[in-house]
């Protein structure tokens, strides 16, 4: 399935000639445009997503990601570039309380900070356990580890010092 969108090109820019057809992918759906630069807002519109609730992510061959979250930011488009959308905030639960975060994946330190427990100092330990994450779905974290989350991921963060 493809959508076609027409955008007037900017005179004198590099890259594929403005006004030439350019195809790229958002969430594996092919989008055809007639420009080589579009704003985040325009791209998400074309793909059918609300810029208020979504960001765009470009994954490179080496696995690194670039996240575009500024609606007015202009993205240079290459032919057959692949983008994915992602929710602008994630709705998760920590110790029974609803929280939101833009970060994904979340590291052990991120989760501890979000829990609003007293910051860890030398000799203190917190257990961080989760369910309903992306991969793995159910596990735990120690310092240095991270987990990819989604809406609904549930965390339990506690000390373990009482007998």
């Amino acid at each position, binding site marked *: 399935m493809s959508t076609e969108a027409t955008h007037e090109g900017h005179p004198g820019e590099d890259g594929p000639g403005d006004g030439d057809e350019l195809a790229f992918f958002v969430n594996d759906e092919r989008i055809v445009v007639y420009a080589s630069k579009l704003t985040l807002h325009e791209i998400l519109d074309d793909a059918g997503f609300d810029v208020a609730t979504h960001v765009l992510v470009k994954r490179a061959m080496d696995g690194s990601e670039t996240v575009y979250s500024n609606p007015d930011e202009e993205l240079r488009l290459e032919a057959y570039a692949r983008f994915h959308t992602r929710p602008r905030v994630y709705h998760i639960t920590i110790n*029974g309380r609803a929280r939101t975060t833009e970060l994904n994946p979340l590291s052990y330190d991120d989760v501890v900070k979000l829990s609003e427990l*007293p910051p860890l100092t030398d000799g203190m330990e917190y*257990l961080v*356990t989760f369910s309903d994450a992306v991969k793995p779905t*159910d596990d735990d974290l120690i310092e240095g580890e991270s987990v990819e989350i989604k809406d609904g991921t549930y965390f339990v963060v*506690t000390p*373990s010092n*009482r007998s």
Partner: protein
Amino acid sequence: MGHTSLSRRVIDRSPDLAQLREDGYEIQVHPANYVVVRNVPYVNAEGAVVYGELFVPISEIGDNGIGRPPNHQAYFRGTFPHKRAGVPLSVIGVNQPGAHNLADGIQAQFYFSYKSDKIRTDGRYADFHAHVTEYVEIMWRYARRVDNTATPLTGRVNDYDEEPSVFAYRDTASTRAEIVPITAKLEGHTVAIVGLGGTGSYILDFLAKVPLKEIRLFDGDRFSQHNAFRAPGAATKSDVFAQPPIAKVEYLKRIYSELHLNISTYPQYVTEIVPDLASADFIFLCIDEPAAKKPIIAGLIQLEKPFIDVGMGIIADEGALGGSLRTTISAPRHRTHRYAIPTADVKDDYKTNIQIVELNALNAALAVVRWKKHLGFYRYHKLEFSSKYTIDLDRVDNADYDET
């Protein structure tokens, strides 16, 4: 060894057993709580007279002798009794085919179910005299036809010489469940519990039922009103409001020495390794203050001692409680853990000082189960050295396994 035999005293105080001995049956009371009858003549499959042994479990045994047999059944060590060559004595009935491990080194091949006309309406024989004589007679009568001199009445007296029990009354639960040789794996150890708060006191509750050589309790605290809500059983008002307050370890020893006779108390805060802690075989650390643990842990590691450290963290939020219970097993080959032992307390602790009794009990139970795996009492697929239970998720997670 060489004390007045407990078994001999039980026989002397039980009229039915005393009568059996007077009749000439070769009976003994085995320390694993069986009446043993040796030299029982029976006919084997080939038609020859051979001799076997009967074991009848005892479920009530104390200073006044033994109670009635718990059921109509009996274990037998030998081959299957026959009427004559090739004709099995089927009336004797067989339950649960297969060998039964009755005690260390004693295995019975059969578990018989024989109800003679002497059986009472409650399905049991009147006493051990009726029970033993009926079982012996049903086999002996056929042995007499082959050899009329065959007899179980040897008149031999040979009582077990046993160590004094660590229990005030005998563990007939293990006998009843046929797990005496498995329970025996727990014998002879000295275990220390440091910290007798909610979790430590439940660990004591469980260990008092184990045939440990000695249980040592270390805690400098007094027993007070709020402790009563996290201790096993129900404290009396006079204990709760005692003036001066009772030491926690003395309060608990008083209760549990009704069952386990070798509980020692150390009403002191442990700040370093003391000799009676160093000489324990295994230590449970149930200390409420992480900072106090540091020197103890360092000392136990230096002495190459195995120990289990427990700790919970309960958070109240959105009107409900959630959190985690940690059980960390530290042994010479596992001294660092994924779920690490804290050695410093949480600042601003007002929100995280919650403990609830069933969570103390659960943490204690998980710790004792893990200790028993260490001794081979419980089976394990993989042996973990870190474990935690998360209340919100109803999930146990394990880590730090032995390399296979």
